[in-house]
């Protein structure tokens, strides 16, 4: 019962935070510096790990698909399989999981630390709403950066698959054929669906991590607990939302 109450309380406070942050949306232009800083932290610093993992996920997808499909004589469709898998599912989900580990945890730690060491209280007494200064630029930045990260993840994953498909002897599909089947079988809406998912995941991750950070009470130990909670809740939400958003977009 207590657990259920805590979950409901968490949902309520997250929605309240969202509404408060949204009410300060008109102040975003004069927080341009903060927005750019958050875009850098969310987008630029996450990019290398997104690129590395996307390359290998695309490669493994091609390898596994080639190995399984060679028995059916269907390995010429590897390009389409890698393309669709990356664009519709693996690209956005992988970027969201990386974002949780790389950015969500950092947001939760920073805001929890600010709360515990009374920096958030100081902002409140200065009549500077934390939702305006700490949450709104992060939400806006993630909305701007998620599509960019996801498109890069897709591109790198597709190229990883193409390289492995041509370099592996039992697959041996040249890049031109690989991309030709990808173009034949894929539509722009496949990529778009993935981008919608990525936006939903990114927005929810940042909102949840901000809320958990800002509601931290206690000392250093609670900061660690807040980070763990933020990561676990975000990961669960990514997978739950993935199902519902996928179903809605089909």
């Amino acid at each position, binding site marked *: 019962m207590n657990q259920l109450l805590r979950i409901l309380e968490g949902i309520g406070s997250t929605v309240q935070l969202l509404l408060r942050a949204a009410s300060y949306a008109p102040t975003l232009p004069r927080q341009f510096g903060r927005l750019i800083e958050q875009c850098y932290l969310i987008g630029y610093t996450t990019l290398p790990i997104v690129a590395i993992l996307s390359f290998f996920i695309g490669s493994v997808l091609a390898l596994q698909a080639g190995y399984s499909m060679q028995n059916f004589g269907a390995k010429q469709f590897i390009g389409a399989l890698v393309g669709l898998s990356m664009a519709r599912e693996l690209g956005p989900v992988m970027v969201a999981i990386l974002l949780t580990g790389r950015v969500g945890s950092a947001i939760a730690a920073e805001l929890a630390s*600010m709360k515990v*060491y*009374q*920096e958030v*209280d*100081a902002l*409140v*007494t*200065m*009549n*500077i709403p934390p939702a305006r*200064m700490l949450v709104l630029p992060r939400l806006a930045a993630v909305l701007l950066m998620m599509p960019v990260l996801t498109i890069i993840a897709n591109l790198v994953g597709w190229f990883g698959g193409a390289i492995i498909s041509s370099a592996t002897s039992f697959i041996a599909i040249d890049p031109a054929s690989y991309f030709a089947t990808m173009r034949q079988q894929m539509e722009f809406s496949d990529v778009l669906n993935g981008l919608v998912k990525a936006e939903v995941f990114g927005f929810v991750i940042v909102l949840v991590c901000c809320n958990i950070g800002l509601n931290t009470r206690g000392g250093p130990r609670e900061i660690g607990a807040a980070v763990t909670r933020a990561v676990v809740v975000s990961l669960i939400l990514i997978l739950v939302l993935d199902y519902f958003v996928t179903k809605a977009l089909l």
Partner: protein
Amino acid sequence: MPPPDTETADLEKPMGGTSAVGVKVENLSKSFGSFDVLKGVTFDVQPGEIFVLMGPSGSGKSVLLKHVVGLELPSAGRVTIDGLDAAEPTTREKVRMALVFQAGALFNSLSVYDNLALYPREHRLAKESGIRDKVMRALQILSLEHAAQKQPSELSGGMRKRVAIARALVMEPQLMLYDEPTSELDPVMSATISEIIATLKEQYRVTSIVVSHDRELALGIANRVGILMGGKLAYLGSASALRQPQDGRIEEFLHPKIDLKNPRFKKLEN
């Protein structure tokens, strides 16, 4: 951030120019779960007064201070500032109040200069050159010009407190609240902070509420003193009357004697 121009700051020019406000605490009670921290506390602070709130650890002093700035909501009773309910967020928009936190609560990601400049920048009170003047004047008052570009992590405890006071000063507050401003400081730095609090009151006629354990500070600068014990106000009156308190508990709190033959912790054990 461009290096600030210390030459432009004018120490004689007042920071404020706004009127001090009165604070009224009426029958204030606060409970955390089943634990009653404040039990019907009532007192008022006159505009321009220095009111020192003392009491043993855990007596509810800091909790009371948080009620004044609206960081805590009362379980019963109310706090008003110039007639406005302190629990209402709009009160912070109408009354400029600054709280100097016990640990400073400086923004660790910002330099000292940017810590001070945050409030005027966020509220767009002046152009950058005007903000620079305000910030440097506040830093000069607290003898901190050399620390403008330092990060909070590079400051000593005393400097952190002074930076926190300087940051509050830039807000040109009508009401200044200090939470244990002299704790963890050496006697000379404690005296310096006490002098700063008294000087600010004289120069800017700001109303000050100081929560402190520091007897010297209370007797030295307070217009009136309140002593909280067990969530209730055990004393409310002038600082001078505290030099010879009638109440045994207050005498024990203000002038505890170290008794090695019959130590207190042994009495507690028994």
